């Protein structure tokens, strides 16, 4: 993997993880209330927009990355992101990681990687 592909790869992990954490920050805000009021509250604050911006950037980054790297290798990225988001959720939102949860998450990541290799 040469320099540009590596840069796009790092950007992909950071943007995807950042985007999901921003969505969680928006959705998990307990002051938001319920129903339509909750959506109004979320849309009036920056986190959901940070998430959407990351999402759009991930899309562009992904297309650029796949122009340099075969899809099967690209899918391995998705597996890494699953683990990155688990760790970030633990650090930033202090999410409880029980052994069964960690096992489940690692199995999903492994499965996604295997599907990628088999493509």
């Amino acid at each position, binding site marked *: 993997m040469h320099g540009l592909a590596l840069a796009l790869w790092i950007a992909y992990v950071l943007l995807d993880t950042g985007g999901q954490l921003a969505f*969680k920050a928006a959705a998990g805000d307990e002051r938001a209330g319920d129903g339509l009021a909750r959506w109004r509250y979320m849309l009036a604050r920056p986190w959901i927009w940070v998430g959407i911006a990351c999402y759009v950037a991930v899309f562009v980054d992904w297309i650029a990355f796949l122009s340099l790297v075969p899809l099967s290798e690209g899918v391995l990225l998705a597996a890494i992101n699953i683990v990155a988001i688990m760790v970030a959720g633990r650090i930033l939102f*202090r999410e409880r990681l*029980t052994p069964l949860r960690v096992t*489940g*998450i690692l199995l999903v*990541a*492994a499965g996604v990687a295997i599907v990628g290799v088999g493509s």
Partner: protein
Amino acid sequence: MKRFYLIGFTLLLAFDTLNLLCFKAAGAHALPLEMSTAWLARVFSHPWVYGAIAGYIGAFVTWMSLLKHAPIGPAFAASHLEVVTAMALSWWVFAEPVTTTQVVGALVIVTGIVCLAFAEGSGEAAKNHLAPHEV
């Protein structure tokens, strides 16, 4: 809470599936593929692309509703059941080949999601967040 997750993830999967089918159909109807306004016009002249957009919006609203309660780590992992359904649909609806390795990967994903479901059901993760003294 278990019912909330079950309904939420089922909806998410339904929107993702709608998305996949509409994208496939929109792409097939817009052939030949080219980077041109004519191609874009072909894409947007069929109802399929609007189904795909609806699928995106539906999936987003569902995801944000799930994240109100669900921890991001396990929820993000569980959302990858989409990989399995996409593969099954490609094979079943579009008669695309599926390799043995992919089937093994799909089974590993499903096993992981079963573990996550048990983790929610067993109550061991009933408190999603660590108490201050547990950090």
